[in-house]
């Protein structure tokens, strides 16, 4: 395996792994805080059990996210030293702020997880909210740093040197807002649907239905609202990318030739040699409309870029189609859920309805991975868009393939263990219900 390809694979694997845990780590605290709030308001012990059950899941996901995030802060240098040498001081601002946010999150999590029965109830609740807010802030900051790679700003690039660096301008690069908004909504959608799906499945199994129904509702209210808002954010992102990174948009749409009144291509197999797309559904003018808000406007195609600067079209196009398709499915499911809440309450008890959501469990995360692929592969061959190429940033140490195999083995085993632990947690809920009902005087100890 070639070193560059191995380094890219390792980075993709690491980020693809981390993104799942990061999403769950930043969204689940809000579900917990909602359930915790309901417990404090209503005194219904089911909500307390739910908060505790979720918090155990969060502990497992948080630690996995934290260690994989720690690894990434090293891997940036281990794999891309020439990138970090220049980029570090420029896009370091979001990372230094993120360090603080992450630190606060870890502290607040300590308060929250171990604070049952030690602190005043509302202070304890508040620490849970702080976990969520600081997690969210971390996520937004990291995405802002990625935005800078897509839309570098805050320096002058003169003769290969990075001059007049302004880290604040780099933080507020042109891509930060659209990317951060899209990623935040994606995190809520993916986590909401995944959590709701698991609880829907437990309802189908007829286990502690009341408990799981409460969990299902909380998760889907968050996930459903985010899924309904996501198309708006998607539209903002598309219009933004059309201006900032036309090559990426062209690769997403497999749009080879610059033209006015460009068609939107749905599905199809791009032929990168012949520069055409086969077997696709084409909607005339729609791409021009989506990119620039006008059916007649010109959309720049890949023909405007030298061949060596083309992103891989096939991967980007497929990933984009998967992301949009799954986003639509989840939007439809969200509509169905809100409709049932409003008019058809009996659906919530029917098997077909629960099966729909149970089957949708992984969709959000597949969409997240696909979206991440679009933004990263769609930027290639650049690591800093139109400044530094990925191949020029890779580490000089040979044999990165071995490092890739090693990290693959680690991530695969971690994923297996986390899945195994999660299954055990989900199965164990009924027992902890029994335990919690016979409330022990020292919940702190009982919990350990």
């Amino acid at each position, binding site marked *: 395996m070639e070193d560059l390809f191995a380094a890219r694979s390792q980075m993709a694997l690491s980020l693809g792994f981390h993104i799942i845990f990061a999403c769950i780590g930043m969204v689940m605290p809000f579900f917990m805080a909602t359930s915790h709030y309901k417990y404090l308001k209503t005194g219904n012990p089911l909500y307390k059990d739910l908060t505790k059950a979720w918090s155990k899941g969060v502990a497992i996901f948080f630690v996995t996210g934290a260690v994989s995030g720690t690894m990434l802060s090293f891997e940036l240098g281990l794999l891309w030293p020439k990138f*970090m040498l220049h980029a570090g001081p420029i896009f370091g601002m979001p990372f*230094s702020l993120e360090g603080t946010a992450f*630190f606060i999150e870890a502290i607040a999590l*300590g308060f929250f997880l171990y604070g049952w029965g030690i602190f005043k109830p509302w202070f304890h609740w508040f620490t849970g909210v702080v976990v969520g807010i600081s997690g969210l802030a971390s996520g937004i900051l990291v995405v802002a740093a990625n935005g800078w790679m897509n839309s570098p700003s805050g320096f002058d690039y003169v003769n290969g040197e990075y001059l007049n*660096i302004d880290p604040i301008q780099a933080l507020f690069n042109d891509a930060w807002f659209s990317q951060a908004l899209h990623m935040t909504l994606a995190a809520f959608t993916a986590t909401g649907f995944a959590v709701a799906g698991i609880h829907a499945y437990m309802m189908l199994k007829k286990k502690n239905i009341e408990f799981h129904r409460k969990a299902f509702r909380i998760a889907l209210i968050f996930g459903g609202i985010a899924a309904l808002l996501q198309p708006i954010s998607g539209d903002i992102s598309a219009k933004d990318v059309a201006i900032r990174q036309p090559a990426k948009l062209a690769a997403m749409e497999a749009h080879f030739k610059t033209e006015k009144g460009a068609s939107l291509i749905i599905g199809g197999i791009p032929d990168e040699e012949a520069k055409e797309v086969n077997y696709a559904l084409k909607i005339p003018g729609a791409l021009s409309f989506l990119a620039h808000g006008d059916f007649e406007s010109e959309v720049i195609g890949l023909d405007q870029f030298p061949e060596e600067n083309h992103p891989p079209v096939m991967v980007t196009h497929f990933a984009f189609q998967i992301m949009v398709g799954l986003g639509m499915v989840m939007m439809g499911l969200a509509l169905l859920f809100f409709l049932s809440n409003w008019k058809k309450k009996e659906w919530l008890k029917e098997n077909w309805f629960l099966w729909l959501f149970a089957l949708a469990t992984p969709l959000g995360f597949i969409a997240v991975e696909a979206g991440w692929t679009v933004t990263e592969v769609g930027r290639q061959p650049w690591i800093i868009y139109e400044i530094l190429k990925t191949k020029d940033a890779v580490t000089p140490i040979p044999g990165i393939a071995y490092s890739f195999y090693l990290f693959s083995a680690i991530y695969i085993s971690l994923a297996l263990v986390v899945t195994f*632990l999660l299954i055990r947690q989900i199965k164990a809920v009924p027992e902890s219900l029994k335990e919690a009902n016979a409330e022990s005087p020292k919940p702190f100890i009982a919990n350990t």
Partner: protein
Amino acid sequence: MLYVVIVFLGLSILLYVLMGGADFGAGIVEMTSPAKIRDRVRAITYQTIGPIWEANHMWLIITIVILFVGFPSIYTMLSVHLHIPLVLLLIGIIGRGTAFVFRHYDAVKDDMQRIYNLIFTYSSFVTPLFLGLIFGATVSGNINPDAANFYDSFIHPWFNFFSFSIGLFTVAICGFLAAVFLVGETMEKELKSYLVKRSRIFMIVTVLAGGLVFLAAEVEGIDLVSLLVQEPMTLSILLLATLALVFLWFQIEKGNRKLSRALSGFVVSAILIAFGYHYFPDIIITQSGENLSVFNSSATGKPIETLAWALLIGSLFILPSLFYLLFSFQRSKVVE
């Protein structure tokens, strides 16, 4: 503003060695305890570090961020030439963090516990070993940016006696910090006297490992003795540390836990400060003598200014909440 960043860099490293070190050390104490007492050590370890372990390791992240934002050439040179030990360090970090949480949050307590324990204890040993080794490698003078072959470029910088001796010394320090800390965490007589004995053993090991560092430096031709004979400042700091250690040896049995902890923290801080003072302002000592220091390798202008402000503002949030976290869980244990 560069000085603010340098102070924070030093502080993060110091706090990581103290807090992260005690945290790793808990695993080392568990690993070296006889089987019949290990379960009880494990139980108090969990009570002690459960709520704070994650925060203990954040200092490493802060250190890394300061390095890549403020001193990018240092960060990249370490990343390139110490790639292999860094990867091994990462494996230790992953294994330790996950195993610690998994063993307590696994809903079923079965044979998997033995696997978690194994991973936790071994990675508690391996991680500080490589951490120390990396630290040793940066000052060992074996990093050679112009090296032509694989061995000189990527192996020799860290695969040497001196780096390993620093690694072992770090492990000893971690075990020492943890053992002294854990003494104050139990009221049980038998366990307490066991931990007092352990603390003394780790004190001896720390002193021996410290001697090994000087021996290794002599063998490898690294000038470390000047720290003792030519620099009155470092010599007096180390003498104070030794006195504190002797005092701690006798005081630990009497059981004033605050004093014991303060003394152990002082000993370790003093060692680190003496080393820091000796090498300041250099961070990486290279073979050619063109060392990378916090002055010649720092970013300049706005990146340093914004980093300094971010650290100052960040610490306003972090430090009070961290102290409150430590204080709360210490108090809750006293109440129990």
